[in-house]
């Protein structure tokens, strides 16, 4: 039983055992996990990594240069091929600027996950980053997803949900991703001014961020809000924008930084979820977020997602209820919720209840085989090949978290092919038979033990260890 505790602690709650980790966990996995909660927030500092503000400001500058180049190319007397070349070069300039930023962030994140001695905290970081998902398939997010995680998520993983929520929803990456930076109150000063012009331009709200805050970030889809709440909340957060983001009413402010633009804000009191909020500019939105963070539906929704991630695809309702009570009782203090989770008996009875996501699988492979992380494209490639590109869930709902979403036939074959490629690369530099009990502990079954022991080569033994049913799950 104790042995199975350490295997669950390292593989379910952690990111997959490194050689020696199970022995270090020793008697009780719960103590090992709770100790991880006691140190500071999981900051990731690397002088090579840029801030979101820096990236955004440079991207804005680059966009202006591209526009200027396009204009001068159009103005040239003989545009022809030279003009087309300028346009093509301009189209490439932004991706070329963003790509290396994305790759260094991917590298830094993978290195942190592989090296960490607080794997629970790193897993929680990834959990929240996915809960508040942005996706790099939208322009500019490639340069921002990593810094968003470092700036908005990491400082609050061991804080309160309310602080985490506010940090996320005021971060330029989220405002850009869900289009709020350009959302304008229909009766705001800016909208009224533009309508009075000779050539009126209609400005208005975009309800994307407001809807996804309610549906995905706080209450959950059945959490008791209506279309009227979405619209009112969208009006509440009009003006939550980014400095230097565009022309006209969007000009001005410190480039790349969160900026409340009062002239875009829809004036007046608004009613969201039955509560009236007096107009206080930026403070109106902060007040709604604070109430959302404390809402019982939010407690239930967050509890369900955590329980699904750490207990089972369909977690027992009593466990979800316990986590929700811990959330509400502590005012959304996340370490309190994590401790309730660690103390949930249900998390410790089924050793392999969760099928690993591709990301889990890759990270646990790196940890288990103590593989070095090469910088740049090589750090990203396995995530692409196995079907879970870093920070690219493709939707604000983030990556799904159930077996059926990941256990496809072709997906399984990709994992095995990757395991095989690792085996070929490592040859006899790893002893899979010796590693198997160190990585899988009490979960190691007879079939895997025997298959690894009787493999035709050291390379094949590595392949079989990583292909094993016990390694596919956590």
């Amino acid at each position: 039983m104790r042995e199975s505790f350490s295997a669950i602690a390292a593989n379910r709650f952690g990111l997959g055992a490194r050689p020696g980790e199970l022995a270090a966990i020793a008697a009780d996995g719960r103590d090992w996990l709770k100790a991880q909660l006691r140190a500071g927030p999981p900051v990731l500092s690397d002088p090579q990594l840029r801030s979101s503000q820096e990236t955004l400001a440079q991207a804005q500058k680059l966009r202006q240069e591209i526009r200027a180049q396009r204009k001068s190319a159009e103005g040239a007397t003989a545009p022809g091929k030279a003009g087309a070349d300028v346009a093509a070069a301009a189209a490439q300039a932004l991706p070329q600027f963003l790509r290396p930023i994305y790759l260094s962030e991917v590298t830094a994140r993978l290195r942190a996950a592989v090296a960490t001695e607080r794997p629970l905290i790193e897993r929680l970081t990834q959990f929240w980053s996915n809960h508040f998902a942005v996706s790099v398939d939208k322009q500019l997010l490639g340069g921002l997803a990593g810094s968003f995680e470092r700036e908005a998520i990491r400082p609050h993983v061991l804080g309160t949900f309310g602080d985490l929520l506010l940090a996320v929803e005021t971060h330029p990456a989220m405002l850009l991703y869900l289009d709020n930076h350009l959302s304008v109150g229909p009766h705001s000063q800016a909208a009224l001014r533009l309508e009075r012009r000779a050539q009126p331009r209609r400005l208005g709200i975009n309800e994307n961020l407001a809807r996804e805050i309610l549906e995905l970030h706080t209450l959950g889809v059945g959490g008791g809000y209506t279309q009227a709440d979405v619209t009112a909340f969208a009006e509440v957060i009009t003006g939550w924008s980014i400095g230097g983001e565009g022309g006209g009413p969007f000009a001005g402010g410190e480039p790349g930084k969160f900026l409340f633009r009062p002239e875009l804000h829809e004036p007046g009191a608004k009613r969201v979820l039955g509560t009236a909020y007096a107009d206080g500019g930026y403070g109106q939105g902060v007040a709604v977020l604070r109430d959302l963070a404390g809402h019982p539906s939010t407690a239930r929704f967050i509890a369900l997602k955590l329980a699904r991630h750490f207990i089972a695809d369909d977690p027992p309702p009593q466990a979800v209820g316990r986590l929700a009570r811990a959330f509400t009782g502590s005012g959304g203090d996340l370490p309190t919720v994590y401790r309730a989770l660690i103390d949930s008996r249900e998390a410790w009875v089924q050793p392999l209840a969760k099928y690993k996501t591709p990301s889990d699988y890759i990270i646990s492979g790196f940890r288990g085989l103590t593989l070095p992380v090469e910088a740049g494209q090589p750090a990203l490639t396995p995530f692409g090949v196995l079907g879970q590109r870093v920070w690219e869930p493709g939707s604000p709902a983030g990556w799904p978290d159930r077996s059926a979403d990941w256990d496809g036939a072709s997906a399984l074959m990709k994992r095995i092919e990757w395991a095989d490629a690792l085996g070929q690369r490592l040859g006899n530099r790893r002893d899979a038979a010796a590693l198997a009990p160190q990585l899988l502990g009490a979960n190691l079954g007879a079939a895997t033990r025997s298959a690894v022991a009787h493999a035709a080569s050291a390379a094949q033994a590595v392949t079989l260890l990583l292909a094993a049913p016990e390694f596919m799950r956590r």
Partner: protein
Amino acid sequence: MQRREFLNLGTLLAGGALLTSRVAFARTDERRARLVLIIMRGALDGLAAVPPYGDRDYAALRGEFALRAPGEAGGALPLDGFFGLHPSLGFLQECYAARELTVLHALASPYRERSHFDGQDVLENGSPRAHALTTGWLNRALAQAPGQAQREAGVALGQNVPLVMRGPAEVTSWSASKLGALDEDTLARITDLYAGDPLLSVRFADALAADAIASADRAGSLAAMAPDTAPRAMSAAGTLQPARPAQANGARYAQVVRAAAGFLRQEAGPRVAVFDTTGWDTHANEGAAAGQLAGRLSALDSGLATLRQELGPVWSDTVVLLVTEFGRTAAINGTRGTDHGTATVALLVGGAVAGGRVIADWPGLSARALYQGRDLAPTLDLRSVLKGVLQEHLLVPPRELERTVFPDSRTARPLTGLVRT
């Protein structure tokens, strides 16, 4: 020995120890019907894809983003004098002229809220409620269609199987491999290693079966997807990534439709293929005749053209069904896009479609006609269309359509006559 060669051997020895009865390739049915389901995730703007330029309220709602009548600069492509096709859908208009395209408008699933994720769940699970079932209507239909026993009935192009295709019927997933193939000995050992694991043993056998079908594609489009040159066609859920420049989108669509065709044109292959497309969630800067949505529609349109070409004679037995979870607001929002709405379009295209029609009980776009004062109102239940196609094309018994495929759907009577019979 390479994996594909090994699998050819496995095919020859069908019924042998490794592939056993899961891959028996004899066709037992006489009909050659093929179905391709394309899920457009993100909520396609039906009023932009198939603009009702003849509606008196349309231009005012869309303002500068209204598509003009056919013949005008940047105008829609003509359909029936009231509806047009988005100017990026040139191939689809050819299909319409050839009576191989039917447009269904003002249509919606039974879902009436505005969450993408619940909307897609209802679209796929086939019940009126999100998360009411963990299997999909297409799989349940396959389980009830004649001639489906003992083989892979369907294939999902992507690494994983979307909800619509999950369930009791034998299905697999396939995507081009970028890594090297495994040797025969390792594959055999993994089969042994999974013998005691109910999930992995089935998935692994399905993967081998799909590779066997792929390698038997003598026409070669699947085998030709050389590992290192295959672009990243799909992400985890098998979704295409059309959020990038149009050219790259086009290449990815071409990849996935070639793979679909490679499976479908084989006698022994699955007869249903499904894949996802994304990028339809146009909240900001949607564009009109040109722009963001235009680029995505154009990539989709040329993907469909490639599908027809790749299917060859099988095209005439094929129905391609394009569906999305819901529509978008009738009016343009404050950021030159559209927010989540209700009714939208579905498209049926293919040689087996009794096409050349727009089917719509048009509710109009006046302020009073709009659903909740903001969306195109639904007048046609998507399940009626799906029932009609499944019944007349895949010969799913009507009783099973009501009972197992679309539970609680009595109000959605099958819409017949959509398919050439």
